[in-house]
């Protein structure tokens, strides 16, 4: 597989491993047990050599990229030297940063133009661990968030909405404001109907129309505190009217699609659309 850069795209992501130390029950890219780190690192380093200047953002994704350990810094150093103006978006479960030295190192190597996107599944430890599939995940992720902040790394906090956290979202907003006020923004994300989300559908699937009010209230509470909020992957017709202004185009270019009824929608060009990769459509899609 040769990496193709697309300078127009919002989705230039380097896939660094299929392994993960979480077992999230809604994972859209289920992890694999394979020793892929060195091969992928070599390919990714080459890809960076061939990268055109002017790429706005380069993603680093997995699996769990921090499983590369110190090798992750080799990759980031390479990006920093070849693409000094490019922002780096690292997607991680944050657990590895419970080691404060690792967090400090990330800041040293990545500099100011790097941010880490980290999911928090619940304010309650038991629910977070249930979703992440690992006992102890919550404690490490929370400590990782604190260490990253102490090191001066920008953080995007991600909340993937599922049936376990959907009704606690407003309470979780208060928790985030009190315990994680330093995150740069909070991103609420609709689930993709793919990967484990299908296998565990009964346990975790919830339709956006069911959590419309809960999400609307959660977003309002954070925004009222002056925190930056974004909603990803949920079409405008499934958001409470006062929450629509937080919606962002987020679905990767190659994944996005629209339903037939969307052609009649006056807000189509402002809408994030639907996941092309989802195996089924959200309920209640309608033209606005």
């Amino acid at each position: 597989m040769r990496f193709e850069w697309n300078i127009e795209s919002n989705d230039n992501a380097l896939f660094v491993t299929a392994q993960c130390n979480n077992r999230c029950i809604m994972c859209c890219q289920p992890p694999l047990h394979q020793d892929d780190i060195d091969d992928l690192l070599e390919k990714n380093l080459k890809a960076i050599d061939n990268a055109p200047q002017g790429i706005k953002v380069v993603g680093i994704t997995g699996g769990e990229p921090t499983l590369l350990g110190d090798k992750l810094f080799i990759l980031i150093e390479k990006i920093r030297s070849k693409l000094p103006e490019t922002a780096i978006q690292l997607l991680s479960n944050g657990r590895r940063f419970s080691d404060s030295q690792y967090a400090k190192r990330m800041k040293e190597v990545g500099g100011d133009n790097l941010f880490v996107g980290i999911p928090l599944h619940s304010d309650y430890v038991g629910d977070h661990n249930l979703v992440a599939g690992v006992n102890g995940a919550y404690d490490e992720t929370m400590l990782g968030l604190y260490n990253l902040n102490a090191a001066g790394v920008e953080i995007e906090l991600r909340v993937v909405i599922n049936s376990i956290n959907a009704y606690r979202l407003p309470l979780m907003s208060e928790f985030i404001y009190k315990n994680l006020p330093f995150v740069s923004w909070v991103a609420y994300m609709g689930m993709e109907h793919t990967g484990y989300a299908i296998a565990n559908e009964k346990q975790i699937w919830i339709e956006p129309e069911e959590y419309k009010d809960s999400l609307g209230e959660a977003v309002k509470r954070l925004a009222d505190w002056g925190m930056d909020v974004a909603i990803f992957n949920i079409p405008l017709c499934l958001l409470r009217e006062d929450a629509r202004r937080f919606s962002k185009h987020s679905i990767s270019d190659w994944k996005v699609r629209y339903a037939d009824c969307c052609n009649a929608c006056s807000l189509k060009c402002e809408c994030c659309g639907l996941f092309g990769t989802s195996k089924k459509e959200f309920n209640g899609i309608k033209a606005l």
Partner: protein
Amino acid sequence: MKYRLLPFNFTRFKEKEVLVNELGDLLVSPRGTVERIINHEDIDAELYKSLVANYFLYEGDIPGTLDIYASRLKTKKSFLGAGTALHIFVLTLRCNQNCIYCQASSRAAENKHCSMSIESMDAAVKLMFKSKSEYLTMEFQGGEPSLEPGLIRYGIELAEQINLQEKRHLTYVLCTNCVNLTDEVLELCKRYNIVISTSLDGPKFIHNHNRGQDSSYDRVTKGIEIAREELGKDRVSALMTTSTFGVHYPIEIVNEYVRLGFNSIFLRALNPYGLATQNDNWDEYTDQFITFYKTAFEHILDINKAGKFFMEEYAVILLRKILTPFTTGFVDLQSPAGILNSVIVYNYDGNVYASDESRMLAEFNDYTFKLGKVTDSYEDLFFGEKARAFAKVWSNECLAGCSDCPVRPYCGADPVRNYSTQGDMYGIRYNSALCKKNKAIIEYLISLLVDREDEVLPIFKSWLS
């Protein structure tokens, strides 16, 4: 689920129980929750999750996020590590007004000997820079400090000169009645970005009654107008004191502040210093003040609901403690107390006091809170015998009647007030007017959050963010 308890206190409002932990995080729960927790009886599953998430309970042998709890406590107490930030320079006791509740033992404007000497100013400014705080505020008080523009100029110029090396963030505040804002004073304010803090007790009939002068209101409001024109509206703030006369006019006082274009008011009670102690019926006054505060506050809520942004400053301080993870710099509600930790006073006579109130006691020949002279060493002043004695009684976590108080994380310790009203720095809580007042106001604000959250929370958030 097996769980253990983290430290918290609680209080009851009607059918609700309000739990407050060491961080000041508050959780509203149904009455009986605490008993059920303690007896490990079944509680609502979502309530249980909230109790764990918000540091009331924890699962396992030790809290998994104990380091985060510690980090948050450090943030709440971050006023401590920074070093003393507020440095009050009492330039003179001379004053051009004659307020009935004067807390500063003012003397007539002619009494030249009641002003600070250049040598004292010199030593005081140097002491200020001994503080390790990154932020230093020089607050000029009196008497009426604008009667001593030369001293202000000398002090600021010296500070600016020293700061070429020190590179602290310097802020200057002039506490003035605005009656004597001469060109010289205004020029100083402009040059050094001095913030003006003035005193206005309400509409004309109240303000003039409190000042003992028929012309005061017109002169003060004229002064405010001039200061705003010259310095900009945001550089002029006003404080009010609720006299035994004004306590009957909450609505009128609030409306006066709105009318004059202020976007906030600080509803302050009288304090028992200086001439104000002649008002001896403190129990009656405290009850009146609590009623006054609530009436004024409801009126302020109505003003906000009508679409106008207008804050009550005391509530803003308390709500920052109740609703946010951050600290406040307000010296009267801190534990350990604001004295020495956050504020120090250099008096006109070259003596150093632990707080503004401390030097007021000294005007009645009580030198309990005198730390020494400006010529003494920083170490002797800040770590001397007196400072060590204060330190034993300046944390409400360790005071009987405070340690188990449900609203303790929002309140503070005040050894000076305890001493001046009860003759004992440790203090007795059950009959303390200060305790009664603070508790009443804090519980009132919490009751608003419990009973009328949808109505008040958006307003409170607009004040805090």
